[in-house]
């Protein structure tokens, strides 16, 4: 079965030092399903999201692999076409709503711009679609909000707007990069529920980057555990929580406090597990021979 998003053997490295950031990553995401991307800070979760959306930092180069979006290899199409393809079929829900909206532009155009400029919709149709999605994310007085500037809205409201903006063009894939970490704890739950609802209603495939295994258990169908840019476990959420296979996954799960027992303290990942995972990655590096040159 081929997913709407298929990442195959994707390797990336830093242009200057040659340090490997992604190690033959394979990720398959069928249409309408949700995959969690977990791993410690610096594991490369965001890097995968950025690669899919074509916004890798200049310093990062893709060495090999394929990113198939709707059966087209993004790394093989010319840049201008790739941008349009991604803009039409995928969208991002960013991490920090305070910095992801342009402070000098009104809300309305920041939702409708993609519809008008990239998808060629008429302005009136784009505006009514924007109102529609703003209602869907429970923004009060959407007509008024469209005329406001970002600084006139709270963080929670802004994240709702960014979610609305992501769903506005009915993309088949949404990448959500820790969409709740920048928010108040009280708002986090609402936003999570909102994303989950919209995803189910629209049948969007969702790549959900997070630290939080609790979130994964609520939102995701499948899960990729990342360590140092390598997928160490690719499994369903059910199987992961029942019996994680990889030692690193087991340690990660053990490190997560159960919601039933809030008093339980966070267990650090044991050093032995980290050493083992490092050794595995090192062995992998030793065996790795890049094929051909860098793509796009």
């Amino acid at each position: 079965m081929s997913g709407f998003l298929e990442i195959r053997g994707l390797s990336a490295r830093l242009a200057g030092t040659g340090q490997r950031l992604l190690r033959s990553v394979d990720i398959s995401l069928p249409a309408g399903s949700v995959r969690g991307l977990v791993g410690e800070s610096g594991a490369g979760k965001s890097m995968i999201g950025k690669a899919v959306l074509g916004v890798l930092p200049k310093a990062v180069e893709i060495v090999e692999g394929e990113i198939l979006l709707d059966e087209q290899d993004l790394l093989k199409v010319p840049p201008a076409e790739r941008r349009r393809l991604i803009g039409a079929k995928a969208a991002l829900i960013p991490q920090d709503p305070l910095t992801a909206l342009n402070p000098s532009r009104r809300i309305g155009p920041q939702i409708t711009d993609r519809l008008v400029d990239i998808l060629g919709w008429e302005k009136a149709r784009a505006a009514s679609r924007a109102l529609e999605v703003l209602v869907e994310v429970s923004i009060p007085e959407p007509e008024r909000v469209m005329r406001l500037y970002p600084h006139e809205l709270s963080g929670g409201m802004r994240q709702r707007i960014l979610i609305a903006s992501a769903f506005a063009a009915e993309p088949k894939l949404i990448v959500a990069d820790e969409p709740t970490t920048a928010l108040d704890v009280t708002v986090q739950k609402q936003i999570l529920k909102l994303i989950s609802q919209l995803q189910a209603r629209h049948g969007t495939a969702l790549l959900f980057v997070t630290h939080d295994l609790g979130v994964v258990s609520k939102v995701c169908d499948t899960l990729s555990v990342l360590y140092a840019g390598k997928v160490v476990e690719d499994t369903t959420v059910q199987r992961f929580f029942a019996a994680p296979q990889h030692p690193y996954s087991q340690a990660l799960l053990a490190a997560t406090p159960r919601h039933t027992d809030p008093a339980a303290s966070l267990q650090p990942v044991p050093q032995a597990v980290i050493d083992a995972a490092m050794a595995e990655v090192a062995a992998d590096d030793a065996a790795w021979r890049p094929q051909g040159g860098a793509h796009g």
Partner: protein
Amino acid sequence: MLLLRLTLSRLLTTLITLVGVAVIVFVVIRVVPGNPIAMMLPPGASAADIDRLKALYGLDKSIAEQFLIWFGNVLHGDFGTSITTRQPVLSLVLDRLPATLELSIMALVIAVIIGVTLAILGTRLRGRKAEAGIDVANGIGLSVPDFLWGLALILLFGVIWPVFQISGRVSPRLELPFTSQFYLFESIVRLRFDLTADLLSHMFMPALALALPLAAIISQLLKQSLKETVNLDYSVLARTKGYSETRVILSEALPNSILPTLTLVGVQFTFLIGGTIIVERLFSYEGLGNMAIDAVINRDLPLIQGIVILFAILFTFVNLAVDMTYAFLNPKLRHA
């Protein structure tokens, strides 16, 4: 509301500044060596003659007394009489002001066009050789002062490839139908584009000489700011929507980078106006700056005072205008 409060407080500080400038100028030009009376009388004039003339111009009184008299008159709109031309200072100065304003604004427009274009280009081509080229151009623009640009331009466009006028404001043989001193503006309004062309041909080199250092500053500051802004989250988000790099620079980054650049450009624009003094002289352009040099050479104290006060008013006005524009362009202040 905020805008109003800002304006009022700025007007007050402006007034205080102007009085301060008036005092300093008044004292300084009377303390530095050089005697206006000596310049007016033939050699060998009697001491009695000198005293009579001194009394006529009020130069026999103490500096404090002179200042109070002058300041009282100024409050009534009387800036005194030029010693050399024996005409009212106010009308002399106001007659020349439009020429300098037109030149400065033209220079500002050129600087903004060149600076913004280079900044956008440099940002679009960041990390490539072309960006390094723009950096070098900025470096040269910053390190060569306006009057040296003037000399270089005279050599280039006046001597080697003589396509522009190198002297004056307008060709003397032309009949001028103008009723104001805003020649360029009037020539456009009256649709006399033949005159516009002649005026521009005269204005081009001094304006460009004044513009180049400012263009380099704008280019450097704006590019630096743009390069930061294109990596911010909202710019990245715009890229995921399908926008091209150029579009991201123009519609996401530029509106946010213009604001911090604007304040500095305001300050630099006052330097540009100061630069007209030498550059107008260089191109024999009949503006305030050129007049200022004549006034200093002739020790024409009332005229010097008048010109300096006018320049000071001009500077504070520019700063005020920049602050207002900033407040107006900034959504956060506009809605406060």
